[in-house]
């Protein structure tokens, strides 16, 4: 098939990150093509929740990056044609004991210092938050800038926005081989012919290492499996995102005071009301290869955890469960970086559970890097070469 097509930039991966890159790059008039092996939002971006959070980010660089992303998404609501269920109610973390309250206070202090809109909540506040919350909770904290989107609709909306700015999107197009030819042009062989580009962005999330391998680039990302439960609308349980403080500990790998199986599965409550009035309940974290089959025992422990925090949902109904792969990195930060070993090759992957939160800022920063503009956030902590050679292998 003589199907040779050339453009300036090719982004591989049509998840929320790839779509954001296609959107911001095409908006800045770059000639960009997106290649997706299945269809838009068919991997992690449709097997997750839709929280755009600063509440669970390390205070400082990490939480400020989220705040920037929140501001961009706020604008996207006006810019994009397709609605994506955007809401901006803030979010809440709840504490089970005095120890967590003390840690929460430190968290709030640090976040406030970093310029974010955080404050502590007492028992009375929790009662006002939701009449479904357990009576024995000590209190918690809130972040008022946090927002919620429908992740696959935002992916579709950015994809369509990118097309309007002239981006080309090829779905069901899998990159089988990637190399640089003698003229230093990237050649991408796919099941639908060959493409060429001056620059390539790897936005394949948990699958990014496979693309890296084609250029002999080791990308230290591992798939981490996470389960989500969908529960049916009956009565409104809470109006915004509620998580247990232990989620932070589970995320950053600290010691929690829970039973060994809950600990093993990394099961921690994340509650998200959706636009359809259903609610999502997570979460779990497991290293289990690329398997996305729902594990009944994990789901059982997530349900248990949900009932511990919301006892009165015990007779509400679970209608669906699913699992997705979070692209994990050792320091919990994504890789948003040019790769010096392969000039013109960029990585935008490794967001673990923060891909929805950070997609917009990731797309923006890649666009700025490619255009040679000053980036919206410092990119030093996101560099590919921050990992030691040992970690890369």
């Amino acid at each position, binding site marked *: 098939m003589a199907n040779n097509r050339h453009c300036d930039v090719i982004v591989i991966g049509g998840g929320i990150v790839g779509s954001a890159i296609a959107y911001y790059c095409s908006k800045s008039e770059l000639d960009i093509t997106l290649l997706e092996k299945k269809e838009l939002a068919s991997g992690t971006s449709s097997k997750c929740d839709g929280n755009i959070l600063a509440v669970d980010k390390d205070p400082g660089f990490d939480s400020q990056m989220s705040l920037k992303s929140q501001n961009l998404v706020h604008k996207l609501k006006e810019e994009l044609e397709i609605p994506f269920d955007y809401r901006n109610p803030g979010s809440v973390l709840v504490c089970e004991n005095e120890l967590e309250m003390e840690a929460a206070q430190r968290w709030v202090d640090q976040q406030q210092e970093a310029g974010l809109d955080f404050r502590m909540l007492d028992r009375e506040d929790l009662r006002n938050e939701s009449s479904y919350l357990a009576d024995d909770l000590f209190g918690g904290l809130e972040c008022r800038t946090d927002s919620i989107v429908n992740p696959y609709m935002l992916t579709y909306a950015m994809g369509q926005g990118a097309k309007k700015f002239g981006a080309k999107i090829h*779905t069901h197009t899998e990159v089988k081989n990637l190399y640089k030819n003698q003229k230093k042009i990237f050649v991408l062989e796919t099941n639908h012919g060959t493409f060429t580009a001056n620059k390539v962005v790897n936005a394949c999330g948990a699958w990014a290492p496979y693309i890296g391998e084609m250029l002999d680039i080791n990308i230290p990302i591992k798939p981490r499996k996470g389960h989500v439960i969908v529960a*049916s609308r009956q009565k409104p349980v809470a109006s915004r995102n509620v998580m247990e403080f232990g989620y932070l500990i589970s995320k950053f790998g600290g010691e929690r005071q829970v039973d060994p199986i809950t600990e093993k599965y990394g099961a921690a409550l994340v509650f998200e009301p959706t636009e359809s009035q259903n609610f999502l309940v997570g979460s779990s974290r497991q290293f289990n290869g690329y398997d996305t089959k729902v594990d009944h025992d994990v789901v059982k422990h997530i349900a248990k955890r949900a009932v511990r925090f919301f006892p009165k949902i015990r007779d509400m109904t679970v209608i669906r469960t699913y699992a997705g792969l979070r692209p994990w990195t050792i320091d919990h930060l994504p890789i948003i970086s040019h790769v010096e070993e392969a000039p013109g090759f960029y990585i935008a992957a490794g967001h673990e559970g923060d891909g929805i939160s950070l997609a917009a800022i990731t797309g923006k920063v890649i666009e700025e890097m490619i255009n040679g503009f000053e980036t919206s956030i410092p990119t030093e902590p996101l560099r590919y070469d921050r990992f030691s050679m040992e970690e890369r292998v």
Partner: protein
Amino acid sequence: MNKDELIICRCEEVNYQTLRDTAHKYQCTSRELKLRTRAGMGYCGGRSCRLMVDKIANSNEGEQDLTYISLKYQPPVRPIKFEDLGGDKN
């Protein structure tokens, strides 16, 4: 009765016209059609409308070479209460 107004997904109240127009506009697979319209995402998990959603998506005369796959099944087999799933009853 007008065929367009026929409700295909009763749980999410999605009618035939919405499904047909969305399928036509986006030339998409049944999975994407489901996500864009919410047909099949309600209480019964698509047990009533799954075949019709598949059929509407796959009757597109699109140019795209789509792999015709039908909608997947996700657990649980039927809706289950939180307490039966994770409560101490187990």
